[in-house]
């Protein structure tokens, strides 16, 4: 079931989350992501949370769990657009999201991917103008 609209760009799956997250929605999004990664042959997952103004311990746990799951499917996770006050809150609560890559925005995420993958990246054409 599709809970959030996603965008497939080359081998990237971009997931902009722009809905209010309740616990069961988070779970459904996780399912959706896993399914789409398998179906679409994705190897990079980008989750954009720039419109999310509350990320509590459960949501961050699920983000980390999702990143761990997709890692086992051969896929790296990038989270972009965490608002400053959300970062402040998460850090103060002592929540540590090891294993996830972070970027300020979608553009930053792609720059990071490009740097990490170098020229071997299949979708490099979209970065050529950089």
């Amino acid at each position, binding site marked *: 079931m599709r809970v959030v609209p996603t965008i497939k760009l080359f081998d990237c799956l971009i997931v902009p989350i722009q809905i*209010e*997250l*309740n*616990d*069961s929605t988070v779970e459904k999004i996780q399912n959706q992501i896993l399914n789409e990664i398998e179906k679409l042959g994705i190897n990079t997952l980008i989750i954009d949370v720039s419109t999310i*103004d*509350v*990320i*509590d*311990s*459960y949501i*961050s*746990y*699920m983000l980390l*769990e999702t990143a761990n799951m997709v890692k086992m499917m051969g896929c790296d996770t990038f989270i972009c657009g965490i*608002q*400053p*006050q*959300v970062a*402040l*809150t998460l850090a*103060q*609560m*002592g*929540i540590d999201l090891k294993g996830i890559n972070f970027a300020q925005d979608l553009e930053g995420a792609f720059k990071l991917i490009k740097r990490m993958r170098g020229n071997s990246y299949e979708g490099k054409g979209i970065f050529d103008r950089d």
Partner: protein
Amino acid sequence: MKEKESLIEIDPKDYDIVVKIKDEKDIVVARQMVKDFAKRLNFSLGDVTKLSTAVSELARNIYRYAGEGFIFVREINDKGSAILEIVAYDNGPGIKDLNLAMQSGYSTTKGSFGLGLSGVKRLMDEFYINSKVDKGTVVIVKKRRRNY
């Protein structure tokens, strides 16, 4: 709530917001109401986020462990400076070992960092918790408005 030996005497009339938590969606409702309320009281954006995150954790604890309970929120005026108080109250199973429950990384549930209660404590200025087995749990947190 007025019965003897209850953990706390609360008159809902004293509070600005009362949310009954009995469904998962009520967590979001409580979160949003506190967010709007704190914004209206001119709390900084950082503190608004901390308050709504804290209430999200407390409401989830009610829903997960007690099934049903209440979130009470009010503004307290302390010599001209505002304090926002959140009370999370339930008549659930209670917590056997409060010290253990407050430890970072401890949780009785799978799918959790175990940072809910300890995280809330770190986000707030004041934190009070009391719990009796088979009677319920009450958590009271306060956050003072900072004037920058």
